[in-house]
């Protein structure tokens, strides 16, 4: 009898907007992990270098950034060795950006599975964020090696106590990216226009975030304001503060970012759960 009641479900046409179904997601935590594992198992199948690519690509892009922005454009990096500066920037932005773009097509990309079997759809975005986090961790192995080297050299002085904040900042950034992503994916089940925008929207957003330049190099007042309200600015700067010892902090910006994250998370999950009920009819 208790078993019957435990598994009771009632499905009707109404939908409780404020039911985020997080408990159900927890019940499916093994599935989150399996999807994460699978994304790694599949990405480097039939490649020569395999998982080595996870190290090569961030190094390459950081080298390119160093050449373009430091050597050619002469943008300073506040005395931090520029290769290290860009390794950290790349890792942070890469994580945020993959959390967002990787989830912006959750519904359309998984229509095959979603159309055949029920599981809490939130499992997929969560596993995407988790694999992004692991990728970032791998990326950080190289970064840490550089960091240790430059610290010993005396070129940087990390704020060791602040490093303890990094996991929290990561979760904050990941959830923000995921929530933006699932909002986009919820909206694109019906009108696909938005998914076209995501690609260049993300690169615009990157330049509006202190990724390829430190905030101290900005002298345009309007850009300063933009950086202040950009919710990604604070997490990025906190990272730099902890690891590189140089970072910008502004309480207003922090409040904006946290409020923005809370809002998109709540709204995103709400919208996602609403769309998941019927999206198979329109996708």
């Amino acid at each position, binding site marked *: 009898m208790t078993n019957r009641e435990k598994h009771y479900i009632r499905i009707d046409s109404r939908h409780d907007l404020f039911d985020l179904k997080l408990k159900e997601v927890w019940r499916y935590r*093994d599935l989150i992990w399996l999807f994460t594992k699978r994304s790694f198992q599949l990405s480097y*199948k039939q490649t020569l270098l395999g998982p080595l690519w996870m190290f090569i690509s961030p190094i390459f892009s950081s080298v390119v950034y160093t050449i373009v922005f430091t050597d050619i454009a002469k943008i300073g990096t506040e005395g931090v060795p520029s290769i290290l500066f860009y390794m950290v920037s790349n890792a942070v932005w890469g994580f945020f950006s993959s959390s967002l773009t990787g989830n912006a097509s959750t519904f359309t990309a998984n229509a095959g599975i979603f*159309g055949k079997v029920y599981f809490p759809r939130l499992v997929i975005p969560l596993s995407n964020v988790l694999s992004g986090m692991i990728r970032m961790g791998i990326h950080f192995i190289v970064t840490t090696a550089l960091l240790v080297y430059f610290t010993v050299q005396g070129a940087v002085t990390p704020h060791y106590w602040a490093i303890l904040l990094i996991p929290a900042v990561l979760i904050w950034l990941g959830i923000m990216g995921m929530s933006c992503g699932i909002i986009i994916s919820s909206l694109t089940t019906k009108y696909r226009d938005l998914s076209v925008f995501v690609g260049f929207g993300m690169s615009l957003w990157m330049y509006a975030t202190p990724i390829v330049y430190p905030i101290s190099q900005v002298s345009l007042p309007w850009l300063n304001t933009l950086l202040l309200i950009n919710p990604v600015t604070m997490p990025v700067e906190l990272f730099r503060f902890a690891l590189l010892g140089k970072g910008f902090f502004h309480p207003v910006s922090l409040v904006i970012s946290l409020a923005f994250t809370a809002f998109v998370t709540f709204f995103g999950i709400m919208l996602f759960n609403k769309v998941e009920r019927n999206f198979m009819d329109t996708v």
Partner: protein
Amino acid sequence: MGNKELMIRLRGVKKKYRLGRIGGGTLKADMESRWAALRGKEDPNTIIGEKRKVGDTFMALNGIDLDVYEGEALGIIGRNGAGKSTLLKLLSRVTAPTDGVIEMWGRVTSMLEVGTGFHGEMTGRENIYMNGSILGMTKAEIDAKIEDIIEFSEVRDFIDTPVKRYSSGMFVKLAFSVAAHLDSEIMIMDEVLAVGDVAFQKKCLSKMREAAGTQGRTVLYVSHNMNTIRQLCDRCVVMDEGKIIFDGDVEKAIELYTAVTPQKLPGKYIYDKTYHNDLWKHPDFTIEEMHATDRVNFVFDSGEDILLSLSVSTKQAFNSVKFRFEFSDMSENKLGSMWSHGTLSFEENEHRELNAKISSRLFTPGQYKVDIVAFLTDAFGEDHFLDGVYPGFYLEISEKINDANPFVWHREWWGSLRLQEFEIE
């Protein structure tokens, strides 16, 4: 046993789909709907009426009420587009109803497709974990059952090979095994048994029967294969136009679904091109017409002789011609055939009426499809096809109790044919 627990309850469940393309026009329609809702007016784009198709919307399900109990194996049959799959989708929670309430007291395993979430690059074992988790099992539960799953699937030797190297049969076996070993109270299946070899199909059916019978699970099964429905289900609903039009006994349901209505049991057939098999037909021998000799419909009581008259025309002479009647049930399963006794000879350019007499003693109440075939046996004893008509005619044996049909015949247990009595002392 006694009073069984209710497992699934549906009340007034409706599902509306929008017809035509989505985009362009729908944004405008959405705006209209929103605007109407804001002003508290009736939405111009949602008119849920009694009719199934209203404007550019379509009622895939139009008011379903259904109760399913613990331990029941319920078959769902109906023509394509009757709403069967939509019903399963709602129960699997792939999509939500437009109206009405669905209540379930148990976990649901749905197999709307074989091997959901399987990935070709991953091994059989990895896919078991993936598929099992998608279907709602935890890792610990799969760990406990993986040996049983592998054993049942009969693919143990390949379990650590990527499934892209599997044959389609192996793939299906593995996928079914995972679903069959789930600890759910409700199993929903959509014709997944259609694949795999016969022996494995049998194994699946008995596994599912066991699930319903001994484990008291509830099985919902949609199929166009009446035989699997017969073997598995103890109750059956027939769906038509988004509604349930029959709910009850399996044989009655199948009969209703496959039955030809009396108007379609004519007593006379004129065989045009559509009846003949052009590929095999001898050009000079044609079965042209057929009619029942003593009635207007092919409806007979058990034991009555079926008298029919068959017109045949020839363009050349034929010797040693025989006829064969092939009997099928309405789900197109061949039941048996009878041969004409003796042979006939035809002359050149002949047009002849033949009279045949068939004893209906063998046939139990119900409907049959009968194909008529003419063939010739040559001097070497080899048979040559001359002409055949498909179907030759439909036949109904009434349920009247008489000497030849002394008691109610249970097809589901005894089959369609009543064989000769035997001696016992």
